[in-house]
């Protein structure tokens, strides 16, 4: 039983470190291959580039650890981003707009949770449904056009810097990481997430409130997707009708690359951060090396396949 929980034994820890070693190797290789790679400017640029995916992937980690999957994250990002921009465009203040976006994201995530728990719909199908529904709502709300944002303080959220150096999205990413890591490791909620994904029946018998837990993890995923949507809207000075297409797959890839098992019950949040960085550095490095964008997709696909193969071997 203890093996199923977060701590595991020494061998499991070594296995997990595979993704960290992979990231270090990639960093070394790129430093050797490209003269423009290893400098503070580029590293901060990559951190900012991965922040959106990382924010979504942190929420996705909880869902996957609890034995589920959330395909609606990209659609929630687009819809909440559009609503946030829309609230500001109709003359309201930035705080109300952000509150509306975050509240809506939480609500949409909870709806996913209700479908999966009381509705007994398979997570893949339930979130596929909400994804399609929200994509349609976003297109009809925006009429397919970007909604511009002219609020300067709002623009700082995604485009500003701390001390003229650290991009704000990077601060959000590490802040949310610390909060989520505490939630996962330091609270009963976190322990129950592992228990739920490890063996739902056993968790039920030992008193875990299964349905409430599912509302919690999908709600968290929705909330973080909305936060990512707000940061992205700020960064783009506009909400895009088709924003976040395919982001669900990037987030799942980050979680899996980080060594969290798609079967649930086994994994760690730090791995997800490493996975997101792996994808980000791979994108950045391939661009710096001038690799054709067609081959970039081949390389990324191969990396994900290898990670999943490794997951199967564990």
């Amino acid at each position, binding site marked *: 039983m203890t093996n199923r929980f977060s701590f595991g034994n020494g061998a499991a820890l070594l296995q997990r470190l*595979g993704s960290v070693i992979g990231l270090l190797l990639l960093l070394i290789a790129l430093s050797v291959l490209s003269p423009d790679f290893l400098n503070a400017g580029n590293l901060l640029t990559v951190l900012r580039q991965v922040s959106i995916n990382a924010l979504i992937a942190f929420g996705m980690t909880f869902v996957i650890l609890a034995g589920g999957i959330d395909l609606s994250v990209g659609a929630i990002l687009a819809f909440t981003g559009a609503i946030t921009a829309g609230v500001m465009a109709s003359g309201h203040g930035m705080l109300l707009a952000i509150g509306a976006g975050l509240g809506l994201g939480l609500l949409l995530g909870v709806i996913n949770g209700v479908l999966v728990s009381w509705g007994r719909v398979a997570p893949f199908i339930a979130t596929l449904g909400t994804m399609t529904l929200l994509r349609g709502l976003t297109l009809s709300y925006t009429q397919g056009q970007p909604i511009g944002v002219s609020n300067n303080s709002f623009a700082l959220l995604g485009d500003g810097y701390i001390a003229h150096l650290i991009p704000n999205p990077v601060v959000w990413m590490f802040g949310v990481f610390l909060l989520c890591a505490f939630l996962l490791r330091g609270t009963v909620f976190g322990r129950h997430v592992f228990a739920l994904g490890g063996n739902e029946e056993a968790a039920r018998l030992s008193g875990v409130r299964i349905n409430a837990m599912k509302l919690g993890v999908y709600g968290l995923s929705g909330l973080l997707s909305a936060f990512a949507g707000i940061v992205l809207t700020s960064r783009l000075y506009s909400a895009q009708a088709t924003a976040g297409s395919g982001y669900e797959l990037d987030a799942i890839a980050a979680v899996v690359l980080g060594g969290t098992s798609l079967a649930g019950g086994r994994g760690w949040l730090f791995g997800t951060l490493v996975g997101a960085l792996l994808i980000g550095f791979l994108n950045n490095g391939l661009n710096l090396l001038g690799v054709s964008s067609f081959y970039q997709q081949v390389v990324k696909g191969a990396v994900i396949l290898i990670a999943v193969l490794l997951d199967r071997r564990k």
Partner: protein
Amino acid sequence: MRKFELLAVSALTLLAAACSQQGPADSSAPSAASSSAPAAAAGKTIGLALSTQNNPFFVALKDGAQKEAAVDGYTLTVVDAQDDPAKQISSVEDLIQKKVSVILLNPTDSSALAGAVKEANNAHIPVITLDRSVDGGQVVTHIASDNVAGGDDAAKFLIKALDNKGNVIELQGVPGTSAARDRGEGFDDGIKGSGLKIIAQQPANFDRAQGLSVTENLLQGHPDVQAIFAQNDEMALGAVRALDGAKRANVLVVGFDGTPDGIQAVKDGKIAAIVAQQPQLIGQLGVKSAKSVIDGQTVEAKISVPLKLVTKDNAQ
């Protein structure tokens, strides 16, 4: 287990390195050529950030840019945003980190890319926009088709083809876009003062299905029509379907863009003429202007790329 992972990552890194050296599709200067390139161009890299390669128009633009870059042995690094503005910002940042000499930007969206242009400005890398413009930051020049002149070409064609007499329906693009505005302006001004009359104007949002339904409705309300001007090929193809359904084969249709489907319809005699853009030329002029910027010459703040009238006689 860990050995396997190490092996996998090293193999991928090697693969990436191999791709970067060959880069057959996207890197126009082969490694051998770049070492023997003229001194002025040696080591000079131009970055091209495309909105998407999932559209023949932008692939043609890239081809034109690559051919022009290869002439003097410049290296062209192409990044593709797959129509995602966030991804395009990242790729522009990567080009900045790569310290390319000039960035050719074909934005996915005018508002979203302003921040990326400002970042390039801060890094003192000149930016040239292609096809779509950007709402913020400093660009050296904007290169795009002259849509106003194209609209005028369409008007002139119809005036001649109809012997300066008849009624015209105009299918408009997405309201508020620069393409719809400029094409409409050129066409309306061209028709003004002639014997032709625009009896109806309605948006069909650059969409084939809407072009079909809007034309069907307009034909009901305005049966006496001799020509239809559509602000893009997709709407023109929709109008052709509506005319087929209403058995009105004698109505002349004029499209805009020159997509493969549109050109085929010209060859088949379904569309009378298309005002065709020249994406290859846009890419070529982009790289030419970049070379001028690198050589320290001044370039015009706006470069209009001429359009070409395609009829059955010159369609290919």
